[in-house]
Each structure stands twice: as structure tokens, then as C-alpha cells.
């Protein structure tokens, strides 16, 4: 069954666009319906995307809508992949969590929240995963600078040390 036709038929108003690049199919869908769409992809005979390979986020700054959440589904039965993409605005990057359909999404969504600041509604445990709990900001955003540390030589040891953030006595 053609996944695009099946999705267009089942969700005529939620499928926004489709793209094909290097043989990979991307379906851009409405974020509000993502749980239903994933459930449809998993449970419909002929599609049966039973395995969630990956969920990741992407920041398209300065474009609007700014954020994307990308779901890579895979069907072991039909040996076929599908990419679903949800585009989110900069002011309101919120998307429902797909954990009810794919339990594997749990940590992926936490990682996206941690690194890109995209919120997932109805996620059971949306805490930071990789960064420390008290970290400010979301490092994978394009407006978050890539930090660096000045190399500490003997001549500037104290100077560099003064600017280090660790706790002092």
C-alpha cells in the first residue's frame, strides 16, 4: 500500500506536504494529529510501521516555522521506511508525545526537549536528559553559541582560573 495515499485518505486535512529525496519519503503532517497518524501507520494492514527507529528535532532558524520534529518509522514486515515531519512555530514549539503508540519515543522526546526546547504534551517524565538539571538554555538551538574554553598555560593560569564557573571555597 502506498503510505502517502493511505495517509492522505485517512487524514485529508492533516497531511500538509510530501517530499522525496534520494529515495526517502517524507510526509509533513499537522502536529496536533501526530498521535493518531502514528497509530494509523502502526496498526493499518498494509502499512504496519511497527518500529520507531528515531525521533529527532531540527532548528531551521531563521525560517518560520522554525522547528521540526522528525519521526523515522520502519516496518519490519514490509522492509520499508517512512519519515514523518512536524513543523512548529518559534513561539509555540509544542507537540503531543507519541509514547502511547511507540514506547521507544520516551528518551528521544526527552532529548529533544533538553537540547532544542520543544515541549511534548502528555509526556510522563519530561525532564532534561543529557544536560545538567539546572542548565540554562537549549544547546542545539541555532541561536545558542558554541562555547569554548581558553587554554590554560602557566603564564595565564590564574587569569583563566578566575573565570571558571566551578564552586569556590
Amino acid at each position, binding site marked *: 500500500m502506498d503510505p502517502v495515499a493511505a495517509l492522505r485518505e485517512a487524514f485529508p486535512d492533516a497531511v500538509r506536504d510530501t517530499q522525496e529525496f534520494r529515495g*526517502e519519503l517524507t510526509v509533513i503532517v499537522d502536529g496536533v494529529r501526530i498521535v493518531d497518524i502514528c497509530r494509523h501507520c502502526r496498526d493499518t494492514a498494509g502499512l504496519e510501521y511497527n518500529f*520507531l527507529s*528515531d525521533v*529527532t528535532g*531540527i532548528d531551521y532558524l531563521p525560517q518560520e516555522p522554525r522547528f521540526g520534529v522528525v519521526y523515522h518509522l520502519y516496518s519490519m514486515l514490509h522492509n520499508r521506511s517512512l519519515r514523518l515531519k512536524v513543523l512548529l512555530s518559534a513561539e509555540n514549539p509544542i507537540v503531543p508525545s507519541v509514547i502511547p503508540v511507540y514506547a*521507544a519515543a520516551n*528518551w528521544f522526546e526527552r532529548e529533544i526537549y533538553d537540547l532544542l526546547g520543544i515541549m511534548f504534551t502528555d509526556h510522563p517524565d519530561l525532564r532534561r536528559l543529557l544536560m*545538567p538539571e539546572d542548565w540554562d538554555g537549549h544547546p*542545539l538551538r541555532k541561536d545558542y553559541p558554541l562555547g569554548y574554553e581558553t587554554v590554560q598555560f602557566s603564564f595565564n593560569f590564574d587569569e583563566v582560573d578566575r573565570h571558571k564557573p566551578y564552586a569556590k571555597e
Partner: protein
Amino acid sequence: MTVSEITTWQGDVEQLKGLVSERALSGETMVLNMGPQHPSTHGVLRLLLELDGENIISCVPDVGFLHTGIEKNMEAKRYEQAITMTDRMDYLSPMGNNLVYCLAMEKLIDLDVPLRAQYIRVLLAELTRINSHLVWLATHALDIGAMSVFLYCFREREKLLDIFEIVSGQRMMSTYFRPGGLWRDVPEEFEPAVRDFLDYFPGKIDDYENLLTSNPLWLDRTQGIGFLSADDAIRLGCSGPTLRGSGVNWDIRKAIPYSSYDHFDFEVPLGQHGDVYDRYIVRMKELRQSLHIVRQALDNLPGGPVRSNNRKYVPPPRSELGQSMEAVIHHFKLWTEGFRPPEGEVYVRVESPRGELGCFLASDGSPKPWRVHFRTPTFVHLSALPHMAKDHLIADLVGIIGSIDIVLGDCDR
């Protein structure tokens, strides 16, 4: 802090709410931190355990201690520069990481790879798999109490690291695979070294199996522990030997062949019960299958170039620089500015020693990747650990962690 202060320290109970049950907050069950510095967590992994006596009620993994921002760093480097960062993710399988990133770049720019380079990639990827499985077996057995297996495995691993040094000059961080092929062809001493290893290693696998496979102590500690049903394994996103230990026949080398894996004849070992022992058996059989693939690759190694001839993406050989102005221009452009792949997004998956290793690569047409994301098997398997560890004894948790073969560098990136 004195000893009495440590033992009476209560901690902040607020932080534990939502992670452990009400019984733990009232003091009925015990909350124990395992790690981050614990020899059997294979790196820096912290597990927050709620225990009723010795039984695990819940297990909350805490990761991120090895987070080095590789994905962010790669966005600031040119495509080819960023290969060096991939070595450092899963440090037991550097060539596997190089491979997935190079395949993603090649798919993005539709670049051809000569057959000889593809075969050498397969050969080295399989040697890397053996290398990784050796460290897994060594540490897994050591955790359960078999010290000698640890020493034997590391002895054999030295030979593999020597082979990696022969081809790339580096024992671990090889950066040998490049977009469009390899850094350079393998030197003369490569083939005899691999043949030596092929003759030497099968007997060593027999030795390991003699020590463990039907050892009653080993069976007691591994059978019926860490059970994972096939449905749960798929639901939780498990892949690789962890998935195949539960009897699901899904190997990316067979399902979606990459780098000419379809030219090779090999079997995909499967388990039946989905416990720690079956995952052990699957990996031991994989060692033999990997040797089989290495032998085929070496016997059928085709001649020819090891780098693509597409000069817009692959630098010309050194010998041309003295003769061709065009070669000098290409060389200069590629090493100062880098190449510009077309706009687009690709996702490539390979079978790493641990499972599905995926690379999502997005390009905006500039010489630096817009977004690189790695879907790493350890990350997903650790998120499935609470499911596997529930209702087991705390002593068995060590075996379960060993059986999913975690590398924290792979998880945290």
C-alpha cells in the same frame, strides 16, 4: 564530611518525587544510587534504584555524564572534518561510526564508492564488531565473576588494534573511512596480519565457550534473567543482538544491505527466550559469522581504486598535484572551503555491534552540516533497562546491564 554526617544525611526528598514510589518516600523501601562511578556500569552511568530488600522495584537510569555535544560541534565543522568526532562516540566501534556518517554523506551527495573500498569497509567493520564483542564479553564475564575471560579477550583484542594501526596509523580513533572511499589503500602487511588473525581466532572463541557456555555458574547467573519478549523488544525500540536474542530476525545487514553486504554469505543467529544467556549466545555466534565475512571479503577483495573519482567531493591523489593545475585547484578548494552537498535530509542506518546505528543528516547547501543526529543503540537500550530490570535481584542487574552491551559514549554523545 564525617561518617556520621554521611549516614544521617537525608537529601532532598523533593527531587525524588515522581521517580520513586510513595513507599520509598515514607522510608519503607530503600533508595540506592548505583554509580555514576561503579565498575560494572561500564562507564559513567547512574542508576537510581528503589529496593525492597534485594528486589528491584524500580530503576531510573540517569545519563549524560559523558555528554560532549558532538552533534553541536559537528554543525560547526566542515563535513569531512566532522568525521573525527564520530570516532569518539562509540569508542569500541570507531569504524562503524565512520561508516554510518560516510554513508550518510554519500547518500546526500549521491557519491559513488569503488567496490574495493566497499569490501575493505565491510572487512574492517566486521573486525570492529569482533573488537567490540571482545570487550563486551570481557567486561560482561568480569561483572559476573569470570576474571580469566577478561584477560583472554583483551589479549586477542590487541591483535585487532594492531591491524587497525596498520591501516590507519591509529589503534582506536582511526578516521579511516572518508566520503567516497577510504583515506588510502591498505598496506602490504595488512593481508598477512588479517590471515594470521583468521587462523588464530576461531580456537580462541572455542576457549571462551569452553569456559562459559555450559558452565553451571554462568548458566545460573544468566538464564531466565532480564527477560525481554519479542513484542516488548520491538515496542521499546531494541535492535541488534538485544532484539535477536528475543528471536526477532532483523539484521540491517540483511534487511537493508549497505556497502555491498549483499555480496556476502552469512547467517543471522537468533535466540529463543530473550534472556541474558540468549543474548550471550547470539553474540558468540556473531563472532564466528563476522570471521566468516572477513574471510570472504579478503578472498574476494577486488582490485582498483579505493576513492571515488568525483573531484568535486574527493580530493585528488597527491601524485597529480605536481602535474595538473585542475588537481591543485580541487585540492585547494576541498581543503580550505570543503564541498557543498545539495540541500536535503537523509537518514542512514547500519548494524553496529550494539544494534541500529542511524545517522540523520540535514544539509542547507553550505560546507557545514546543518544538523547531524545519531540514533545510537545504547541510548535506546538504556531506556529499555527499567523494563528488563524490574522485579530482579540487584545482583542480577549487573548481568542485565552487561547483556545489552552499553557504551556510555555512544549513549551521551
